[in-house]
């Protein structure tokens, strides 16, 4: 693992109305790390990921990706090369054929004319076929995406990320709507592919079991604050119990 800092979060804060979603959060993620964000619902996991994906703006504090403040990634091409996003399965355009959803990962690099032409004659088709092979869906090339099962749709989203090749992958509850077998399948694929490509992953998960199994580092959030931040093998049952304990029990 290299020592290069990929993501630097510097005392960021985010409020919704009066509620504090994140309070003065700081941490650093190194290149190649596989980080899982865990914690009870409402702890701020999704807010944090949305901030990193610049879908939201922080109220204060600083976010750096690869040494550059996030606000400097105004150019969509630059940003797409740095940061990729995968969420629950609603991220694909259901009415398009699978191949176009996969090729959408190349849109940042393509001219408008090329992307338009691709809808009729798929461009860089062999790359898409290759990506679909790696996620095991090469036979569904021209299937309508909405006809695929939830697990298959998430694999298409992974194939899109393979086309995009970002250095950082942000995954927001990528397996929230899948059954256990499909969930393990997707997580194994996500982390496996990330390792092959030497990508950094930050994922929010509600299952501690999966987080420990597939990720190298766990950051636990509780009430908008970091509760613990440890390599996954050092996390104890005691800590986890405290993390998920209901208030009434305190």
């Amino acid at each position, binding site marked *: 693992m290299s020592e290069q800092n990929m993501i630097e979060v510097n005392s960021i804060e985010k409020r919704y109305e009066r509620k504090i979603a994140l309070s003065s959060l700081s941490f650093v993620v190194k290149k190649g790390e596989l980080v899982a964000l865990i914690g009870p619902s409402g702890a701020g996991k999704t807010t944090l990921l949305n901030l990193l994906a610049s879908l939201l703006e922080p109220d204060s504090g600083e976010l750096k990706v690869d040494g550059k403040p996030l606000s400097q990634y105004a150019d*969509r091409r630059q940003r797409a090369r740095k940061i*990729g*996003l995968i969420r*629950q399965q609603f*991220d694909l355009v259901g*009415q398009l054929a699978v191949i176009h959803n996969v090729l*959408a990962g190349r*849109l940042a690099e393509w001219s*408008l004319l090329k992307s338009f032409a691709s809808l009729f004659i798929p461009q860089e088709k062999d790359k898409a076929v290759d990506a679909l092979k790696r996620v095991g869906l090469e036979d569904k090339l021209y299937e309508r995406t909405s006809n695929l099962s939830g697990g298959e749709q998430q694999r298409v989203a992974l194939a899109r990320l393979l086309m995009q090749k970002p250095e950082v992958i942000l995954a927001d509850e990528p397996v929230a709507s899948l059954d256990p077998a499909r969930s393990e399948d997707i997580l194994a694929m996500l982390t496996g592919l990330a390792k092959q490509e030497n990508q950094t992953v930050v994922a929010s998960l509600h299952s501690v079991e999966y987080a420990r199994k597939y990720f190298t580092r766990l950051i636990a959030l509780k009430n908008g604050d970091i509760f613990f931040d440890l390599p996954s093998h050092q996390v104890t049952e005691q800590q986890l119990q405290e993390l998920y304990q209901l208030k009434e029990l305190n």
Partner: protein
Amino acid sequence: MLSFDLHKRKLLTAFLLLLFAWSLFGVNWQEGVLHSSGLGTAMEIFAAMFQPDLSADIIRLAVHSSWITLAYATAGISLALILALVFGILASGVLAGGKGSRKMMKGFFRGVLGFMRAIHELVWAWLFVASFGLTPYAAVFALAIPYGGILGRIFADMINDVPEEPIQALRAAGASRLQCLFYGYLPSVKASMISYTMYRYECAVRSSAIMSFVGLGGLGYQIQLSLDDLHYDEVWTFMYFLILLIILIDGWSNMLRKRMAL
């Protein structure tokens, strides 16, 4: 809250009934509303309904007029579709960058679409005939403008209703606004656009039939001629052709809608 809702509805119904009663005072009922020979004419027209003129000449004329009516409608709707796509996409505001410019764009182009459909196609036709003379283009343009307005407004609404997540994901993958349009918005609404256009196509055929009123050919023109000659049996022949045309298109669009919903 519920009882208020119920009252609200009752209030509205009562108000609408009152309005209807008021409207009836607009007619001078005392002097009689029928022509002196009105009832007789009505009986004649009704009787002719069951004895349409089916002579070869009239049928041939009816087939040709049906084609003219259909051709104007089709040419008009094809032009309307182009107008609707361009203005609808602009009026949806998805191409605008900032919040302010999006609002301005939406407001402006929705206004344009509103103006296009506020004026009835026949009034447009009359405007075109008055300035261009009697040419098929008058009918085609007169259909294209209001139908472009109606379709464009609906297209804009459809585009605005597309779920946000896939678009955000495309943006995150680095797609530009135009690329989002081709990969996100348009594929998502394509099927509904086709169904709605087919539905309006049927209306356009009906509108095309009345273009005769400003002197342009087609079924309406023949109906008008036959009415002027008091040949009610011919009138019904042409009417039946119009009904047949409408039923055919209605059936086609229903079938298409059912298949596409699968």
